[in-house]
């Protein structure tokens, strides 16, 4: 594999049939491909998210990140878009699921798609990856330090962010969870609670909590970056996807 890729902006049919922009990348060499939907974090579809999309493509996946803020801020800078959406109360869960569904359909409709699609999200996107996997026919989900999958969200947020405990029985695919021991949201106690809950429900999952790492340890341009955790985490992600999407 020479890791040659093409990356471009495409349009997908999101929630309610809305046309929204997405960042898409694909390998140039031939072969049947699984797909990965990358859910961007609260700061928007930014440079780092696009780098993640390209990384999956270089590893042999069709990869896409739908711009969850396109409706409120078409064409805006990611930080301005994030601010506009925050000012309006955030992205409702139902709309997020619809947008991920549209992005996953786009990947399945590629001519050489294998039909198997996974989802990954970081931070707020981690919770949304789990949410998506509870409602959509996906084959793998990766939650990187998503808060409020369990536990109590803060009060007073205009859109009531609620935990997913009542939706976890519908989790329809294996879940990989990567967390930092020094993170407060999700805290080690919360990820242990999630671990126990999924075990009791017979849900296939694999969790790793890294000592010396807090929130956002994958973020290479933030002080929170922890190379050891991030390198190991990427290894676990591709091993997990190799089993669930490429097998």
């Amino acid at each position: 594999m020479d890791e040659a890729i093409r990356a471009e902006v495409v349009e997908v049919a999101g929630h309610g049939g809305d046309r929204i922009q997405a960042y898409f990348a694909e390998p140039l060499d031939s072969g049947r491909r699984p797909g990965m939907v990358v859910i961007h974090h609260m700061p928007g579809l930014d440079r780092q998210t696009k780098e993640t999309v390209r990384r999956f493509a270089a590893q042999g996946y069709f990869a896409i990140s739908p711009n969850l803020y396109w409706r409120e801020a078409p064409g805006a800078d990611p930080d301005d878009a994030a601010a506009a959406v925050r000012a309006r109360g955030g992205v409702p869960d139902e709309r997020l699921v619809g947008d991920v569904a549209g992005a996953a359909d786009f990947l399945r409709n590629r001519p050489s798609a294998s039909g198997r699609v996974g989802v990954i999200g970081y931070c707020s996107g981690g919770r949304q990856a789990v949410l998506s996997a509870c409602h959509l026919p996906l084959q793998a989900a990766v939650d990187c330090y998503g808060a409020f999958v369990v536990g109590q969200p803060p009060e007073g947020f205009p859109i009531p962010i609620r935990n997913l405990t009542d939706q976890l029985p519908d989790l329809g695919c294996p879940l990989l969870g990567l967390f930092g021991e020094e993170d407060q949201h999700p805290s080690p106690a919360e990820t242990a609670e999630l671990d126990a809950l999924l075990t009791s429900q017979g849900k296939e999952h694999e969790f790793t909590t890294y000592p010396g790492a807090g929130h956002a340890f994958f973020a290479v341009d933030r002080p929170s970056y922890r190379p050891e955790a991030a390198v190991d985490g990427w290894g676990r992600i591709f091993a997990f996807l190799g089993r669930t999407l490429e097998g």
Partner: protein
Amino acid sequence: MCTYLTKRLEVDGSGKGAAGWMRVTAASVYFDHPAHAPADHTLNVDLLNPDLGPAGRVALELEPRSARQLAEAILELLAAGPATQTT
């Protein structure tokens, strides 16, 4: 973490954004990831003019200590000004 916590309020004034001066009519205040500041979390303020779209924004990302000092300075100056003009 993404704190999600956000205070939103109406304001009345002006701010200077990427396209120059503009009226600002709304504000978001939140403690969360910055887009630019070299920190994991900052106290962020967006002064907004929603009529101008997402780019109608003046943005601040402050270290918590700086944010407190700024807030205290604002309140101190408002308290010291003529009551008829600062309430």
